[in-house]
């Protein structure tokens, strides 16, 4: 799957932002270093960005910037996990994770159990795929296991979750970003989720 790229100039034109803004956001680490891709063109070296990622990111910055300072925006956008925990009953009450998912994946934990952010994130991701109807409960178990075993290894670096299926056999992978993958013909990519994005969404919901 080749990522679509957008040149710096196209980006500035289409979003109506200036060079100064872009460089300021880069300094504040609102835009990750690895999104700045240097490529040779016929006029020399130019900078490109992964199109879907950068467009949603800039949209987000422009929206948040009115209410929050740039440093606060940076905190909200950073891929590192916040020091945040929540009670199981709160997660269900606020409908952050549906009770069906909680029942299935944390049925034995008492209602007052306090989960760290990372655990809430796992529930959230599983819940998302279940609700989208892409994944069965049994596959959810394996996803839970995959994230628990491998997600901490990324140590806050951006990663993506890939969910593929071939002839009914499903498989999960966590890969670092940016990366390219090419599968054989029989493979269908059921879901591709940016964990960083999920962390941001969840941070937004939890407030």
């Amino acid at each position, binding site marked *: 799957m080749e990522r679509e790229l957008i040149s710096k*100039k196209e980006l500035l*034109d289409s979003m109506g932002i200036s*060079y100064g803004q872009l460089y300021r956001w880069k300094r504040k680490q609102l835009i990750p270093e690895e999104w700045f891709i240097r490529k040779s063109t016929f006029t*020399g070296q130019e900078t490109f960005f992964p199109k879907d990622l950068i467009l949603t990111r800039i949209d987000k910055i422009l929206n948040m910037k009115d209410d929050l300072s740039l440093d606060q925006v940076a905190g909200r956008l950073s891929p590192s996990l916040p020091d945040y925990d929540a009670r199981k009953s709160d997660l269900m009450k606020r409908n952050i994770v549906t009770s069906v998912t909680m029942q299935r994946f944390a049925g034995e934990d008492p209602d007052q159990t306090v989960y760290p952010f990372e655990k809430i994130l796992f529930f959230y991701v599983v819940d998302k795929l279940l609700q989208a109807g892409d994944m069965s409960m049994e596959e959810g178990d394996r996803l839970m296991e995959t994230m628990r075993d491998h997600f901490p290894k990324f140590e806050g670096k951006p990663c993506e979750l890939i969910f593929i299926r071939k002839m009914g056999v499903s498989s999960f992978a966590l890969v670092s970003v940016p990366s390219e993958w090419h599968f054989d013909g029989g493979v269908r990519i059921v879901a591709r989720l940016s964990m960083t994005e999920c962390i941001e969404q969840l941070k937004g919901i939890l407030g």
Partner: protein
Amino acid sequence: MTEIRPDMHINGVSSTPGGHYRSASIDGVIKVEGALQVDGLARMNGVVTVKGDLKAHELEGDGKFKVQGRLSAGTARINGLADVAGSVDGEHMILKGMLSVKGDCAVERFEAEGGFEVGGLLNAGTVDIRLYGRGKAREIGGESIRVRKMARSAWKKIWEWMFPKWNPEMEVDVIEGDDVDLENTIARVVRGNRVVLGPGCRIGRVEYGSELVRHPGAKANEEVKTGA
């Protein structure tokens, strides 16, 4: 709970391990054998080498000093020669002399009087350069970018000694900013909203948004107005 850190005082010709200090005052020919972190002011005087990352709230480097890792300082005042093998970040960099950085340099204000060499991107809100020697960077990006050639000064003799046969000239691949005002600059591409090309500029391609002012002594092969 905050731990009270010790102060570091060292002078003469010696070496010292790194560590985490409240303040540091280093005079003489000193090697710091590792990373050094200072919560307050770090003063370095003489010939100082830090064999790791240097992190300080405030940094004053006089003489010749070298960081083999990355340099991170809220305010950095460098008088003399500084050499950083990693990257530089911070709020305010005030340079009088010569700075050489292998990686990127990202600060809010970059004020340089003298010469510099940045291997990667020089990224600052305000870039204010007064050239006595040669300036070099792969790329410069920011809000306001200004380069001036300084010819005469009371310090001229010193600068001539420091930068023997260098022309006060800046060489960059790409310069991008909102407000770009250049003198004595050689660049492949200059992009900005408002661009002023002063004497001694030799530019491959200029892209400007609202305004381009070109001095008769400036050369640009291509001028393109972009945007609405």
